[in-house]
Each structure stands twice: as structure tokens, then as C-alpha cells.
């Protein structure tokens, strides 16, 4: 049988000090819990919808800022602390956050956010029509692809509407006293989005059939919703930078197809997009990829509105 010996040399005082410190920190009471549901979302768009549905019964914060690329968030200590206190984590899924969320959850050590618990909600489960789901073998020879489909679905407000209903159901499950309020607000939000979707589709009607180029496979849901056709990408493959030959081929394609728009997110290389735009006459539209990506896009509706108006701007 092993003996566990606490040393009696100079090391013993250090070990004892650490043990004492550990006991001290264990005894420090956690932050007092308020009555509101504490919710953390990965994306600001999910936070905006959750605030709308949850009203004054919830406290919501988003990890990702609207101007950050949600694929490559640098985990920060404050994120772990926020997750530790959360009653619910709403994330996009489809492996959008696979590079940074699992270690954060491990360091947060919140038993409410373990696999299978009601405290974890994957927003993509609300999306019926997922795009670019591989049907055969997948490999990284195609770049940094997502094996379960394109995860940038929130830019289509029809998906936002479905996600809102999913969030309302989960809030009602976690907070039954507020169930009626959540479902009522979800219904109101659905009505507002339905009306705005009709307006946006009308506004963007001239874009239907327009060939466009995108920097990254980030706008597939947007172009599909508004009936645009993506004919190429500045990235050679997802996550793989363009080569001079690829750019030459792309410029040729753009000139042949008379591409007039290049869609690029604020955090991508907009100079490359503008350079290609200069060679082809296409307009580089620098778009916020999420809520809060630029001024005036602080809500989900304001973000979609901004994106559509930027597309149709002359």
C-alpha cells in the first residue's frame, strides 16, 4: 500500500500554504444568484434574439463581438467566469465554435453546461434547410470545411425566426413561470420578422439572379435567401488564401459573368476585395458578419436591415 507523505523539509511549508490557499478559495462564497436566468451566447445575433424573447426575465451576454471572426475567438478568462455562472449556453453549432468553445467549457466547470443537459442549446438544430452538408467523403483537401454543413445560417432571417422559437421553448423549459411570456414575445417577434422579411425581399428584388463573388463561404444563406448566385470566392478554398493564379482566374470569371458585387466581412482582407473590385468594376461590399459588427447594427433586425441596404446601395 502506498504511503502519502507530506514532506518535512522546506517543501512542506509550500505545500501546506497551497493546501491552505485551496481551502480558503473553496470557502469563498460564489456570486449571489439573482432571480433572472443567466444566459451566455456565442454569437451576438443569438444574444439579441434571446434578449428580445427573454425580456426582463433574463440576463444575456455574448462571447463573440460582432467584429470578430467567430471561427477564431481567443478564449479569455472572463469568458470562463461568465460560463461558470450561466444557466444556459446558446451556441451556433455545426462546428463553428469547435476551435475555442470546448476548452472554455472545460475550464468553466459548470455542471449545467454538460453534454445532454438542458443548459446547452445548439441553435443550428432549428435550421431545417442546412446548406453545403457534404454528402460523400470529406477531407481537408477542400480547406477548412464544416463536415455538418455551413454554419453561417443566422444571416438568413428565416433561420433567425426558427431559432427564436427554439430559444423560447428552451427558456420556457428552464423557467416555467415565464413560459407564457416567452412564447408570447416569440409570437410577436415572429410577426415582426415576417413583416420585415417581406420588406427586405422587396428591397432586394433587383438583386435576384445577380452573380456575386464572396471572400469566404460566409454568405451562402444570404445569397440563397435573396436569390443571388455566388460564382466564385476570393479564398482559393475555405481558410486557404488566394494565389495569384486563382485571382487571375477569378477576375476572368467575374468579367465573363459580369459580377457586380464582392461580399466581404469586416474582419477579412477587404483590401484584396477592393483590389479585385478595381480590376473588374465590381463593388466590394464590406458587411458586418454579425450583430454589432459596425455602428447601427445593435439588434438582429438592425443587422439584417443594414446588410440588405448595403447590398442594394449604389
Amino acid at each position, binding site marked *: 500500500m502506498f504511503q502519502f507523505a507530506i514532506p518535512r523539509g522546506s517543501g512542506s511549508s509550500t505545500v501546506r500554504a497551497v493546501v491552505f490557499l*485551496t481551502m480558503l478559495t473553496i470557502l469563498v462564497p460564489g456570486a449571489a444568484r439573482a432571480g433572472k436566468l443567466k444566459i451566455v451566447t456565442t454569437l451576438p445575433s443569438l444574444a439579441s434574439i434571446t434578449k428580445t424573447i427573454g425580456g426582463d426575465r433574463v440576463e444575456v451576454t455574448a462571447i463573440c463581438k460582432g467584429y470578430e471572426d467567430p471561427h477564431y475567438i481567443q478564449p479569455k478568462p472572463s469568458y470562463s467566469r461568465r460560463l461558470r455562472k450561466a444557466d444556459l449556453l446558446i451556441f451556433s453549432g455545426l462546428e463553428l465554435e469547435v476551435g475555442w468553445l470546448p476548452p472554455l467549457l472545460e475550464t468553466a*466547470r459548470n455542471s449545467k453546461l454538460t453534454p445532454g443537459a438542458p443548459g446547452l442549446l445548439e441553435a443550428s438544430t432549428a435550421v431545417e434547410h442546412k446548406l453545403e452538408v457534404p454528402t460523400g467523403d470529406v477531407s481537408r483537401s477542400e480547406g477548412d470545411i464544416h463536415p455538418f454543413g455551413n454554419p453561417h445560417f443566422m444571416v438568413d432571417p428565416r433561420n433567425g425566426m426558427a431559432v427564436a422559437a427554439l430559444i423560447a421553448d428552451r427558456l420556457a423549459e428552464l423557467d416555467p413561470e415565464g413560459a407564457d411570456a416567452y412564447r408570447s414575445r416569440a409570437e410577436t417577434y415572429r410577426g415582426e420578422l415576417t413583416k420585415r422579411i417581406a420588406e427586405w425581399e422587396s428591397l432586394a428584388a433587383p438583386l435576384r439572379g445577380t452573380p456575386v463573388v464572396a471572400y469566404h463561404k460566409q454568405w451562402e444563406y444570404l445569397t440563397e435567401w435573396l436569390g443571388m448566385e455566388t460564382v466564385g470566392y476570393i479564398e482559393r478554398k475555405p481558410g486557404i488564401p488566394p494565389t495569384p493564379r486563382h485571382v487571375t482566374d477569378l477576375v476572368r470569371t467575374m468579367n465573363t459573368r459580369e459580377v457586380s458585387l464582392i461580399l466581404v466581412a469586416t474582419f477579412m482582407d477587404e483590401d484584396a476585395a477592393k483590389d479585385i473590385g478595381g480590376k473588374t468594376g465590381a463593388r466590394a461590399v464590406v458587411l458586418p458578419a454579425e450583430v454589432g459588427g459596425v455602428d447601427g447594427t445593435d439588434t438582429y433586425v438592425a443587422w439584417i436591415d443594414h446588410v440588405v441596404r448595403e447590398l442594394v446601395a449604389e
Partner: protein
Amino acid sequence: MTILNGTRHGVPALAALVTFLLFFPGGLAAAPVGGSTATGTSNKMNPALSLNGLFLAGWSDPAGSADGIKAQEFELVASSIVDPYFKAFANVAFDPDPAGGEAGVAVEEGYVRVLGMPEGFGLRGGRFYLPMGRHNQLHSHQFPLINAPRAVQRTLGDESVGDVGVELEYAPLLPWYVNVRLTGTDGANGLFDGESRDMAAGARLENLWDVGESATFEVAGSVLNGPIPDGDRRTLYGADARLKWHDPRKTYGKVVTWTNELLVDHVPGRKDVSGAYSILQVRFARLWWAGAGYSWDSLVPDGLARRTSENEARLQLAWVPSEFSAVRGEIGWTDPAEGDRELTAQLQLNFTIGAHPAHKY
């Protein structure tokens, strides 16, 4: 690395790797999709599997063990939820072409983590890298420079030290992120007397702060204590600090990481020896990183050494075409306590295939 199957040639290790890949359920070899109850070939429950490979070419003056081209190491990583109670992780290293001629297979880490622990607590048991300092928790493919800094090699060895035991973690809710880690392990890890019935004990206190929206600062302290012959105990102390900055508004923007670590080795009746290093890493372009490191350490006078301290400096340039591959070139200058000053040049290829879990921050 703990050698399980030593041999003077690399063939058995490679054969073991190939065998593992072919026969591990749902391994990296092609496996049927789906499956059925009757055949038992469903792969739905297979763990996430990945393989890291490291190839190294080196030159040194005067000629030494760094010269030549070799397959440095392959690491097979598997992780999965076991059941509602446990999550498992394993890292099996294959070293087909070591300088010393002792090829083999080693379980660098293999542990289960308890799910659903009380709020703030973590518990794992099995074989894991000891939380003694920062560098010791890294696998070879995560090393910031091609080799561990000389200060770390002198104190802990050229690869991270693992041991079998349990680790309890607790992260209290304080205004900054604090994590306390306590370990109780067997002690048969190369640092202590493996024959002793006494166990080793360790602790690490980690503190992290947000510094604005772009940076994080971490300060940590470690202690590790275990038995040595004659009934005494050896104690290792460590302190480390790291500053990490990135441009959050650009996907492939600039990143700066500055890591510093101090290690002290105390054995009763002997002069303490210590070592420290500092490493700066900068991503200065989308696919390019630069790195620089300096290491100093002191030695116990033994009459053979020219003096009782030594120094090392390294410069690195890395081309990182994706998250899954990198080519790193490095030049180094070493002024050892024994022997002549040495110049080295190394080129390393690092690749990852499969579903590799995200590294802990």
C-alpha cells in the same frame, strides 16, 4: 517518454502504429459508415481521433546528435465521452527514430475526467502531465520552439513529465480567473525514486486576467514534491507568466505571445539549481510566425563542467499554411557548461490529421 516496448530499431514501433491504425475500432483507416446491430460495425460511438506527425532535419557544429533527418514523433490522440459519468482522453506517442536508438510506444497521457462535478470542481484520474510549470503541460507538437528550452530539459527532461494519479481542480468565482490544481501521483516519473512507497504531491495556482479586449495576462506558481533515495524528498518550484495579445478585428491579424518561466530544483543537502527561459512569438503575416527564445540554467558543480551555468538562444521562422500543418526553421546557439559552444540549424514539419481536440488556453 516512458518506453513500453524498447527496441534498437524503429520497425516494431512503426509496425505497432500501422497495426493500431488498421485495427483500432473506427481508426484512421477507412471504416464502413453506419453499421448494424448484427455486425457490430457501427462507428457512431467512435472517439474523436487524430494523429500528429513531426519530422525533423538538423545540422550542428560541432557535429552532434542533432544532425540528420528523422521521424521525430507521432502522437495518436483519442477522446470521447465514456458514459454519463466520465470523459476520456488518451495520447499515445510513437517514437520510431530516436537519437538513442530506443524506439517504442508510450502512453504520454491517458485519463478519465469526472463529469458533473460540483460547481467549480474538476477531477481526473489516470496518467497525465504533471502541472509543474507551463512548458511541462505541452505535448511535443505544441512546443513553442522545436525543442524544450534547455532550462526545462535540465530540470524536467526533454519531454514533458507524466505520472499516474489523481488531480483535483477548483476554480472559485473571484474577480479574475483562478484555478487551483492539486495532484497526488505515484512518483515513478523519472524525477523521483520510483521504488519508494511514498507518493508525489503537487500543486499549481493559476491566475488569469483580461487586459482590455485584446490581451490576457497569466501568472502561475507550481510546486512538486516527491521521494528520493535515502528517505529524503526532492522539491521543484516553478513560477511562470504569459502575456497574449491579438488583433480581434482581423481573422489573420497580428498575434503576440510572451512566455516566461522560472524553475528551481531543491534537494536537501545540495545547492539548489535553477533555470529560466523567455520566449516571444509573433504572427506578423497571415501565414508567418517569428519566434525567439533565451534560456539560462545553473548546475551543481561536479568538477567536470567548465562553469556552473549555461545559456541558450534560439530564433525561429515558421510558415503555417493552415491550422493543420506548419514548417518551422530554427537556428540556435548553446553555451553549455560541459563541452564546446554549439551552433544548430533545424527544420521541422508538423502535421495533424483527423479530429484533434482544441488545445486548452
